[in-house]
């Protein structure tokens, strides 16, 4: 069976859950091979092996990290030329989508982004996307080259399947042209200690209705082990960091449970959370559009409803 390439998402060799998900999908399309960019492959190998990577192509080249996107695209191109894969899967991050875009042009291959499912079909890999703010589901295939598909987090449960994870070093010479956009400084984000927004099973978000006080939102989130999100109104007001924004121009989340507190439910916000499995809202205004989406809604003040819900959840647990 042909190889299916999976770009590994990791920090210093710590492999993220999305990679296990993509390797699980890759096994349904062909023989999974991981593509690892960085110098810590040995830290990553056991996990890549556990989820079925037969090979691990390793690109250990500082240029790929020091310049924006173009060198990664060149590196991926080198692996594609070597492996002639049946498909290339990447986690849907802004950086990866751009690398995938350049790779598509370089290798003359069709590109599908933000897939919420990928299946083997008669015409090769078939990807499902949720479009127009979640109001339509479309299925697409690629008609030219090896399908390049970026996949959202949480679309399949990762399942283990032990494989060899043989390391295959790939020598990449990054061209001068690809070194046009230099990364001159990098400032790590502060860690909140909470799960990552896009990977969390539960997300609790606050909006303008918090009036800037996110404490009931945070406390409720922490009792549920949830990530905290925010509407753009809350972010623009400076109440929460932009990296927490859920919506069209923020994070697209698809958790098991999404709780919107003090959020009206504008179309741009819905675009980022409408595919959540279960949706709950707390809003003072019974006419708020968010209530059109909910499985459960409370018309009320978040400053009384959330603390009471927090206590009741704690009690139910004990």
């Amino acid at each position, binding site marked *: 069976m042909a190889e299916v390439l999976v770009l590994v998402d990791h920090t210093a060799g710590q492999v993220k859950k999305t990679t296990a998900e993509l390797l699980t999908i890759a096994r349904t399309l062909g023989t999974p091979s991981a593509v690892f960019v960085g110098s810590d492959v040995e830290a990553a190998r056991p996990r890549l092996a556990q989820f079925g990577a037969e090979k691990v192509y390793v690109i250990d080249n500082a240029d790929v990290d020091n310049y924006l996107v173009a060198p990664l695209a060149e590196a991926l191109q080198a692996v594609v030329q070597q492996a002639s894969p049946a498909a290339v899967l990447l986690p849907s991050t802004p950086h990866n989508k751009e690398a995938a875009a350049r790779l598509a042009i370089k290798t003359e291959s069709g*590109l599908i*982004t933000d897939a919420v499912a990928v299946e083997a079909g008669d015409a090769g890999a078939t990807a499902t996307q949720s479009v127009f703010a979640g109001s339509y589901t479309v*299925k697409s295939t690629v008609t030219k080259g090896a399908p390049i598909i970026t996949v959202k987090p949480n679309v399949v449960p990762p399942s283990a399947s032990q494989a060899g994870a043989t390391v295959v070093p790939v020598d990449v010479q990054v061209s001068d042209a690809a070194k046009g956009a230099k990364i001159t400084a990098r400032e790590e*984000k502060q860690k909140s200690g909470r799960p990552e927004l*896009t990977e969390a099973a539960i997300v609790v978000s606050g909006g303008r209705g918090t009036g800037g006080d996110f404490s009931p939102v945070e406390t409720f989130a922490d009792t549920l082990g949830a990530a905290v999100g925010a509407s753009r109104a809350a972010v623009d007001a400076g109440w929460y960091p932009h990296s927490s924004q859920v919506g069209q121009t923020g994070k697209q989340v698809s958790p098991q449970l999404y709780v919107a507190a003090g959020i009206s439910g504008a179309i741009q916000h819905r675009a980022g959370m409408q595919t959540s499995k279960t949706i709950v809202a707390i809003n003072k205004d019974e006419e708020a559009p968010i209530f059109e989406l909910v*499985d459960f809604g409370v018309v009320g003040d978040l400053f009384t409803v959330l603390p009471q819900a927090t206590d009741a959840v704690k009690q139910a647990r004990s």
Partner: protein
Amino acid sequence: MNIVVCVKYVPDAQSDRTFNEDNTTDRDNVDGLLSELDEYAVEAALKIVEAGEGEVTVVTVGPDQAADAVKKALQMGADKAVHVSDDAIHGSDAVATSLVLAEAIKKIGSPDLVLTGLASTDGTMSVVPAMLAERLGLPQVTQVSTLEVEGGTVKGRRDGDVASESLEAQLPALVSVTDQINEPRYPSFKGIMAAKKKPVETWSLADLGVDAGQVGLDAAWTKVESFAARPPREQGEIVTDEGDGGTKLAEFLVAQKFV
């Protein structure tokens, strides 16, 4: 400083967006507008030119109605516009769109800066800027929330998930901007009047020397096989808080096994 801004004409997200029989996006039976996210790119271009000198040209690839999108950018203050319109473009994917845009940009001249939005509000792929950079051989300084152009260098900050990165490139470069970068201006009355006299050129594929066989539905490298409206969510239970709203919420979460 010559700046080209790519602006897309999109179906209004507030109205019911849908598909045609050939699985392409319906652009006729729905109100269209300048993709809101491209207003940030237009604003960024205007600011740069106002701080020094130069000219802002907007370019769009889209159906006849796309001329409306271009008008908005001219009203905001852009100097001139190019509208690439050709029946053969119908159903093009991002790859073909980037090809047509790249050829249009070459024909406009050799801009110092090509500016785009973060993503269109219909396709929302966020890939056309990177494809353009690849095709035009320009460094990409993409998804930036700040932008400075000084002495032939462009600098910007890109806010990623794990880190914020400072980026730098020599001009000419391709830049895409996020909605954090500025507050786009509303067209003034003067701007609206002035826009009426600004030149809008309409180019066909032949004008660009692009073979019609390279674009459109049949030439697309991706194919939409089917579309389906998401079944409407069943209206869930809505309670009004009468002192026990939080308790009821917790009961729901327990019943759904989230607790």
